[in-house]
């Protein structure tokens, strides 16, 4: 659904996005993570045909960005920018109706879709109230509804839950999951690692360049490695030596704990336990040391 190859954007001599190559499948929720200034918004704007590329190629729904076909891309994508950008003096209904008209929907289509979206977000009763009087969360819901007014197959969401309270964030997240169930392609820019982990099928971490891409759990395993923690009653040099003899990549000693880097916990853990018991150790717990996505993210971004 979305394909880029060496996509690059320069602002003067400054590279905002460098040689980005990625592929997002139809019906996939893809999260793009990165620090401020990493090029996430620029990437989204290029893909939504809001700004031009400097070099490289990109296609959305089979249409090339930066070509005369780009107007077709704008017809098929819904965009939620970082700022809600609603007309505060107009009602929720009028805001959505205006965009429905620009997205070439008939009056009947607009009426049905607006009612459907506002009802879903619990705002139908407030449809005639000026959005300027709405809370931040309510405005964000209207902005999400605006991005979906024309029933797009690809949706670009730029920090959709930024500055929202937990309840409003949950509503938006649940809605993204609903979009996923509807098999729509969602391209999500976020700082919220927990959110990305919960709702994205795959994530990409970028800092002008794409640093890593994959499923969150795969990324954790491939970048961090798998580790087993063995908590003992008492740790002795004999126990450490016994575990080292098994030839793991790394063994760390923390008070009465051993942290052992393993390639496959299913086969390695029984051997480790056996070796420790044979060396006279008494085991309290054996557990998997799971790095968070935050650990992976920070390691990549700081490097």
């Amino acid at each position, binding site marked *: 659904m979305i394909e880029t190859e060496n996509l690059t954007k320069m602002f003067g001599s400054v590279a905002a996005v460098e040689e980005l190559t990625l592929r997002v499948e139809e019906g996939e929720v893809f999260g793009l993570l990165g620090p401020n200034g990493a090029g996430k918004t620029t990437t989204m704007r290029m893909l939504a045909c*809001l700004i031009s590329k400097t070099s490289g190629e990109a296609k959305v729904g089979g249409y090339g960005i930066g070509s005369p076909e780009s107007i077709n891309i704008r017809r098929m994508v819904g965009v939620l920018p970082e700022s809600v*950008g609603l*007309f505060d*003096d107009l009602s929720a209904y009028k805001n959505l109706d205006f965009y429905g008209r620009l997205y070439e929907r008939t009056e009947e289509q607009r009426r049905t879709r607006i009612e459907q979206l506002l009802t879903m977000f619990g705002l139908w009763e407030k449809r005639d109230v000026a959005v300027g009087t709405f809370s931040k969360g309510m405005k964000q819901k209207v902005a999400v509804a605006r991005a979906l007014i024309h029933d797009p197959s690809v949706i670009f969401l730029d920090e959709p839950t930024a500055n929202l309270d937990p309840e409003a964030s949950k509503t938006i997240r649940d809605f993204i999951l609903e979009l996923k169930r509807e098999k729509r392609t969602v391209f999500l820019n976020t700082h919220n690692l927990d959110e990305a982990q919960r709702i994205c099928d795959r994530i990409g971490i970028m800092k002008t360049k794409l640093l890593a891409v994959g499923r969150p759990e795969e990324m954790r395993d491939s970048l961090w490695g798998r580790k087993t923690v063995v908590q003992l009653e008492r740790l002795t040099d004999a126990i450490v030596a016994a575990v080292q003899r098994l030839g793991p990549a790394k063994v760390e000693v923390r008070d009465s704990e051993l942290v052992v880097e393993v390639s496959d916990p299913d086969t390695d853990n029984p051997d480790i336990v056996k070796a420790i018991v044979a060396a006279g150790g008494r085991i309290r717990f054996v557990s998997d040391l799971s790095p968070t996505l935050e650990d992976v993210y920070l390691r990549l971004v700081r490097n």
Partner: protein
Amino acid sequence: MRILELWKSWVVATNDFSIFWKKKYIVYSLIGIPVTLSIGLPLALRLIMQGNPISVSELEVVLNAFAFLFILLASFLPTILASYSFVGEKLEKNLEPLLATPTTDGELLLGKGLAAFLPSILTTYLGAAVFMVLVDRLTYGALGTYYFPNWNTTVILLVAVPIACAFSVGVNIIISSLVSDLRAAQQLGILVLLPVGGLYVLAERDFKSLEIGNLIIISALLLVADAFLFYLSRVTFRREEILTKWK
């Protein structure tokens, strides 16, 4: 090359009308300024005529000069609307979702331009109509005929006023792309009155300069300026510039 879909420009313009209608300062300005001019000028004329007798030729000079002020009015009103249309939306960050829709820069620009042009021209005409009725009632006794409408005011209202209004819209679009503050945009926009005001001063010095032929020449010059400004505003109004450089 894609042809402009004019209905989209109209959608943009009507949306702006709805917003203008909700902004008190815009509504008050659009109504208040033409009303002040259309009632204030006949009142001033009445004072002039009461103070000392005025000859017919002198009265004609004054009336033509007053009629010319509606060109200034048509140049001034778009400074309020066009500055909101662009800088206001820039400040409220409404442009990005608008630019994401399947509309071209030309359609958006035309829509925004119409939103500033149509209310300005409409209220100028309404003000001019009130002005002409009041002046005719006031001067019928002295002239023995209704002075308005006449060929001079017809050229002023149907040719010079729309062209001057479009000129002002063009200047204000360009100014809006250069500044980020609504007040600054309006203050700079008022500079558009300088060339038109200059013509007014020249007209005041020499009655002949307000003859139809000269009015048409002035209008033709403004029309050329309009075309140049439209080109310039197309160059200025680029979605990439708006998203990445308009702060």
